[in-house]
């Protein structure tokens, strides 16, 4: 909404940006990063979702109309912003405790102690990349700050990473800066959290955990790189709770998920990065933003035919409003993830199914009644305006034809656009029959893969580091 206002102001016309009352502060923070810190906001009292039509009308007439007139006609005072420090400027000197207090006071920390980012520590990280520290990898909204090799190292130090994680940190930030991912949405109200999936020999080289407790903190590379992600969103992209991060509840950052590639090779399935286009055995990260997750406990069966129905049911039962990314807000951009424990992946593969076969089976069977789908997009929510049925949306060309195949409200419709939209990973306790499902945030954190680039002397550096 504010990005549109900035475009219009740049085109030379005044704007009024309509904001529910609770979002005026976020609008002010976001405006700065757009280069117009004084974008004019017209208030809508309360939140529109819980107002009757009469109340909404009364509120708009009482407050919003006057605000719109003010925004468009009253002169606005010019604004200047204070000077920012330079990247290598020493901003503070003190003890460990004093540094931590200073970083907390300036909102540069997540509340846990940080490792003080001294130039000596940063240099250790920079030794693990051949790239120029000042190289700009992209510009991150909402603050519109530059993602650089230097500030990756700074935040990597702070997060407690080891210097040799640097190539993975760089790849993660390259993915974050890719417009396909959509980092600018990271402060939206559902408060989804990104999962970084790591593939390639580097997972073993750096000691990532990909067996029992694969999503648990306590393993340095998995844990600290997950923490780095959130610190980087805070400090460089600018997502601060109570400001640009409006997650209603939010959640703690996720640890990095490394796949069990020994098992994948044994059963002949591609990795997640492979599915995303990475060459075989490439080191790569794939990021995607998930609104929630749950364990699918104790999958029971000695064949694929016996295991898959429960997994399909889990995908459907955990998917609710997120179907707006399949039909409505976007088309076919919902990418839920299913993590299979090795023993379940091997059981399914033993039945002769490839990963593509599993995806096809899930596409055919992980379906929900059209009526329920419609409630999620515009009955129980108001996320898709117009209260149109799937049949109407299909006839209007706003939903694939499969969604308008009949008038039966109980007909089953797919929850994703195509079979390969189900992302399937293999990790976790090798000998336990649990699986895990993650529900996806669609275009507001779309799967994005980047290969990890290693320095020329990687192996020597690793030996020295160990």
């Amino acid at each position, binding site marked *: 909404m504010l990005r549109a206002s900035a475009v219009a102001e740049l085109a030379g016309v005044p704007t009024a940006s309509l904001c529910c009352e609770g979002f005026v502060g976020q609008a002010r923070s976001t405006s700065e990063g757009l280069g117009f810190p004084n974008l004019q906001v017209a208030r*809508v009292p309360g939140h529109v979702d819980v107002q009757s039509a009469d109340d909404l009308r009364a509120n708009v007439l009482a407050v919003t109309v006057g605000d719109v007139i003010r925004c468009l006609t009253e002169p606005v005072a010019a604004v200047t912003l204070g000077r920012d420090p330079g990247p290598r400027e020493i901003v503070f000197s003190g003890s460990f405790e004093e540094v931590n207090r200073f970083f907390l006071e300036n909102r540069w920390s997540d509340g846990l102690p940080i490792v003080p980012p001294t130039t000596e520590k940063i240099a250790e990280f920079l030794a693990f990349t051949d790239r120029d520290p000042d190289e700009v990898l992209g510009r991150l909204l909402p603050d519109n700050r530059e993602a650089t090799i230097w500030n990756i190292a700074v935040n990597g130090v702070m997060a407690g990473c080891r210097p040799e994680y640097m190539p993975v940190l760089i790849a993660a930030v390259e993915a974050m800066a890719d417009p396909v991912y959509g980092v600018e949405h990271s402060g939206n109200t559902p408060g989804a959290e990104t999962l970084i999936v790591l593939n390639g020999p580097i997972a073993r080289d750096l000691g990532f955990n990909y067996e029992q407790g694969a999503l648990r903190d306590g393993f340095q590379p998995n844990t600290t790189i997950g923490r780095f992600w959130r610190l980087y969103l805070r400090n460089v992209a600018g997502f601060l709770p109570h400001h640009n991060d409006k997650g209603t509840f939010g959640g703690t950052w996720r640890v990095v998920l490394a796949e069990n590639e020994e098992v994948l090779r044994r059963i002949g399935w591609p990795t997640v990065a492979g599915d995303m286009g990475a060459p075989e055995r490439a080191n790569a990260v794939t990021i995607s933003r998930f609104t929630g997750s749950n364990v699918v406990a104790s999958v029971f069966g000695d064949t694929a035919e016996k295991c898959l129905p429960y997994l399909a049911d889990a995908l459907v039962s955990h998917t609710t409003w997120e179907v707006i990314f399949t039909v409505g807000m976007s088309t076919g951009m919902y990418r839920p993830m299913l993590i299979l424990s090795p023993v379940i992946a091997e059981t399914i593969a033993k039945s002769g199914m490839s990963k593509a076969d599993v995806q096809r089976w899930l596409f055919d069977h992980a379906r929900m009644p059209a009526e329920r789908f419609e409630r999620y997009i515009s009955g129980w929510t108001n996320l898709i305006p117009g209260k149109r049925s799937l049949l109407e949306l299909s006839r209007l060309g706003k939903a694939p034809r499969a969604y308008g195949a009949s008038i039966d409200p109980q007909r089953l419709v797919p929850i994703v656009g195509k079979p390969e939209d189900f992302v399937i990973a293999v990790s976790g306790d090798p000998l336990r029959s649990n699986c895990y499902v993650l529900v996806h945030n669609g275009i507001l954190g779309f799967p994005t893969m980047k290969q990890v680039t290693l320095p020329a002397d990687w192996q020597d550096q690793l030996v020295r580091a160990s």
Partner: protein
Amino acid sequence: MTSNAYQVVWPRSAKSVSVRPLAPRLDSLEGRTIGFVWDYLFRGDEIWPVLKEALAARFPGMRFVDYETFGSTHGEAEHQVLDGMPKLIGELKIDAVVSGMGC
């Protein structure tokens, strides 16, 4: 400073956009053309008609360009819609824009 002092750097980085002035405000809305760009969320389709009605009653000769002209500013076509906005503003002689909804 203690003997164990850490000299630390800033964890943020330069903003890649500089502050720009807002477009000049209008003397009056009378006879002006207002466009409504919308992210297709949070009842903008109900709020816009109320705004139009109230503004038209107060400022004679106002003209309105509805959100369908632009497309959704939030969704898979966001970048395309925003890229096309300046051209539409010019072609349709739009004097001001109301943008919703931040909720």
